[in-house]
């Protein structure tokens, strides 16, 4: 009984209209923050036709003085009024929950789940349409709930393709219904703020031009440390970590001995991304910067997949150092939120944690030779 809305991709004019409608909804949401009971309505196309016919019947009634036409006119007007009342009942006592995906990439569709709970004891809510209000990004699809039974909930999900990386700010929900007669569309706006960090789009890119050894998995470094390989045994000293005691050997020797381990050495890739915007940079630089961010993200994921550790260096900051085999999300999150800085005010590039394996991802403004 729940379904996402039409899947057709909006055309540019439709997209403009969607954007305009979104702006209106957001304005209404902002204006009525302290009036959550506020309702909005408009007549549907069918409603306008119905209203026009009603007026026609009314005029005919006045013209002819035929009381039966007055009766029909009263009936049609009553249907319009009743439509408004019924849609109000449908929109009452509803609660919503939104579940966001763990990861979302720019340009890649992700599923967002919406849950509607009908708090009414006896009345089902029919024909609900939910639209997620996201700043700057109109919904491609709306979630449709044919029926939400009383004291029950229904779940539906919709696909959203974030246009750009960064914070996707969800402001609220627009809950509309045209029930019962399709004459009037009435809606409420609910504040439901949430934020989704959209990772950069992962573009196709060449493997990093590094030494083969730089892309090997972690290996022992023949030095003592907290690695996984055991380098030897030695006598236990007071105060040392009891977890390092080799109990079987201690039992055999009759005194406590503890095992020593080698330190793991890791191949790290330090991706340098200069986010300083030159003074004479135009819009093409911004596009190039976004591509560079995407390239950096793709390189980071590639390096991690090949068994290397990764960090991203930029002006006045660096990403967390992600060890080999770990999730790339910290780096992707860093890249998602990375903003360009003005060159005059930019701090120097952060130095890499490891001098070897530095890869500089350059920003190439679109339209210029690399």
């Amino acid at each position, binding site marked *: 009984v729940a379904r996402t809305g039409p899947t057709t991709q909006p055309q540019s004019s439709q997209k403009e209209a969607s954007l305009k409608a979104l702006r209106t909804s957001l304005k209404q949401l902002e204006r009525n923050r302290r*009036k959550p*009971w506020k309702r909005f309505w408009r007549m549907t196309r069918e409603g306008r036709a119905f209203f026009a016919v009603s007026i026609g019947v009314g005029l005919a009634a006045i013209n002819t003085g035929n*009381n*039966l036409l*007055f009766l029909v006119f009263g009936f049609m007007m009553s249907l319009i009024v009743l439509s408004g009342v019924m849609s109000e009942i449908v929109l009452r006592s509803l609660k919503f929950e*939104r579940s*966001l995906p763990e990861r979302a990439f720019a340009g890649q569709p992700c599923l967002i789940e919406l849950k509607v709970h009908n708090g009414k004891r006896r009345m089902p809510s029919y024909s609900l349409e939910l639209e997620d209000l996201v700043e700057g990004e109109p919904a491609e699809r709306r979630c449709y709930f044919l029926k939400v039974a009383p004291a029950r909930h229904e779940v539906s999900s919709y696909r959203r393709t974030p246009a750009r990386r960064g914070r996707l700010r969800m402001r609220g929900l627009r809950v509309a219904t045209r*029930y019962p*007669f399709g004459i009037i569309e009435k809606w409420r706006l609910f504040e439901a703020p949430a934020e989704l960090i959209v990772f950069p789009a992962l573009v196709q890119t060449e493997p990093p031009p590094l030494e083969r050894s730089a892309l090997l998995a972690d290996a022992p470094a023949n030095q003592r440390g907290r690695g996984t390989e055991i380098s030897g045994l030695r006598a236990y000293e007071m105060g040392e970590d009891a977890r390092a005691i080799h109990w079987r050997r201690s039992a055999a020797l009759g005194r406590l001995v503890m095992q020593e381990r080698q330190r793991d050495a890791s191949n790290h890739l330090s991706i340098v991304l200069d986010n300083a915007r030159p003074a004479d940079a135009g819009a093409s630089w911004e596009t190039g910067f976004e591509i560079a961010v995407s390239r950096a993200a793709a390189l980071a994921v590639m390096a991690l997949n090949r068994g290397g550790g990764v960090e991203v260096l930029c002006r006045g900051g660096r990403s967390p150092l992600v060890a080999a085999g770990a999730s790339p999300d910290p780096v992707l999150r860093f890249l998602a939120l990375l903003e360009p800085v003005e060159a005059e005010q930019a701090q120097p590039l952060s130095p890499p944690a490891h001098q070897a394996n530095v890869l500089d991802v350059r920003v190439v403004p679109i339209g210029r030779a690399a």
Partner: protein
Amino acid sequence: LSFSLLHKLVAYLLSGLGLVALSLGTELEDSVVVAMLVAYAVSFFAEGPMLHRPRYNTGWTIAVVVALVLQVLRGVMTEATLAMAIEFAAFLQVSRLFNRRSAADYQQIAVLAFLHLVAATVLSTDVGYAVLFGGFVIVTPWMLALSHLRREIEGNYPAAAPDDEHARAAVGRVLASKRVVGPQFLFGTAALAVPLFIMTLAIFLAIPRVGRGFLTFDKSRGDRVAGFGNLVELGGFGVIRDDPTVVMRVTLLPEGASHPPQTLLRMRGTSFDRYDGRRWTRSPATAAALGRRGRTTYPLVRSPDRARDEAMRIVLDHLEEPVVFVPAGTVALEIPPRVESAQRIPRDLTHGPGLDIRYHDPDALGLVYTAYVTSDRAQRRLVAASPEPLERYLQVPGGHARVATLATQVVGDAATDEQKAQRLQAYLSSGEFAYTLEQPDVGSSAPLNAFLFEAKRGHCEYFSSAMAIMLRTLGIPARNVTGFVGGRFNPYGGYYALRQGDAHSWVEAWIPGVGWMTFDPTPPAREGVGPREGLWADVRALVDAMRTRWMTSVVGYDLRVQVGALRKLWTWWAAQRAASEARERATTADGDGDWLPSTPAVRWLIGFAIIVLFGALLVRWLRRRRGMGEETVSAHEREAVRLYRDLDRALASKGMARAREVTPLEHARVLGESGLDASEDIQRITRGYVEARYGGRVLSPDELAQLRAALARVRGAATSASRTTPRQGSPQTPAR
């Protein structure tokens, strides 16, 4: 029931009502109605892939175009444009029923049914329309709601291509579901009929009936009742004696008095002066306008004496002959004016020879009027006279010598014309002549001769004709009169109903020095013959009461009634106000008083207004409270909540306002991390608030005192720089 089956049944219910609405009135021929019903029934079984075949669709499109052309041609050729249009409207609906594929088709069915209902307003004003309208009030919400849901279902499973089987299967699955709509939906939606009806009635009553102009339609012909046209064929009148159709309702005013179940009201219609030996006719004559006083009063003998005269309110159906029926002894009529374009237009009544009163009936709604009858019983046999030559009432056709001889024998030595008439009346109504509805076989002889000398039985026309001719042979002017005699009390409507079967014929004779007197020679045995009584009669009475109420209160509702109702309301209000002022003066004079008016109605009104006001305020308060997301808090939580609100305000005043999406604990933590001096106090207050508010912990007086002290420190703490809490998102944000 599955959604699709339920939708189909409701669609057939609504379209059936629409088609029946088209069948109201007399425009459609029976054969067309039968064909329409057969097609309607057959279309129910049109299902499945057949509906989606291109040839099937093309065939129906061509059929509709052909039908349109055919009906236009027939309309032009036969001039029965309205009938042709109705037939085409019915055909369109049938074609839609044969092509039920999608929500759009069902919507078209609903629209067409609605148009049929509108069209029926010009076809019939009978109570049948009321029944259909009631059906529409119940079924329309079902149909519109189901059509809307179907449209949404189809719209949310869009087909990628015209033959997208996947989308079709998905839609089919939902339409086949029995969970979407159930009995609760049906009953709930049917219950909408109650507010719908009330609102419809309110709008109907409230709209001022100010307009009336062009484009009105010709109304259908009224019921045919023999005996009131220009000709009465002897033998063609009495045989309707068993017809129970009510044509007239008489309410004795004032209402509310007890009434016998049956009475004999004599409602005079018209009279005939020429008899050719077989039929009665009226001599051609120009009718004059009946004089009027004011807008409503039409004196026949004199102006009404409302204090002494007896009043009867008469609701007359629209009959083919617009005759005004008057009770015996009527001195004046009162007929409310018609209302056109907010103007009250007096009724046009004409007065022809033989007291033939007729009215102009452009609405075909019949007539509602009041007859004032003299309270002097002796005068009731007298009929209002009009200046006209009496010679025409002495005409006797040839071949009635035996009748004249018989008349002379019967009157014998009677001295006056009145005595002669009474003897003739007594002779005919004695047991020598029998009352029967069977037509006497008169063969080639004159009907009256056959009646008086051979058959000696007949119905009222024979008796009245015989007496009239016998009087004329004696030189007494006489005329045959037709009208209704009878009256069965309808307890549901509070009136006496006169039926077609009560149609009657009697005689008026001119008595010098007195005027026209009424004589009825038909034997009393007539009263024993009539429509059957019993359960059906009761049902008929109930239906007729409804019909009368429908015709007078709905169909006949006009600006005059509206203004009258408003006037009554204003009068009532003025009386209440005057009474209130009088009481106020009295209490002021007494120096003691009750500020509240003591009239029960006003007290009720004030009480009701207070309750409504209080209810509205309560609802508003509840909505605001719920809208703000507030919940009820217990007494021990209240202090903690107050403390935290104070803390919130204090922080906001220092530029550290908490964002709406940030929880109190998060806010406290962030402030703590920022190294604020009073962060410990902030965290202590926050923890206390959270534990009391959500953890159910009761804060002791000492703890509350400590928290108040902490709040004072926070307020006093100097902050070097104002800062705000960063916004923090949550992947799952509940919303209300």
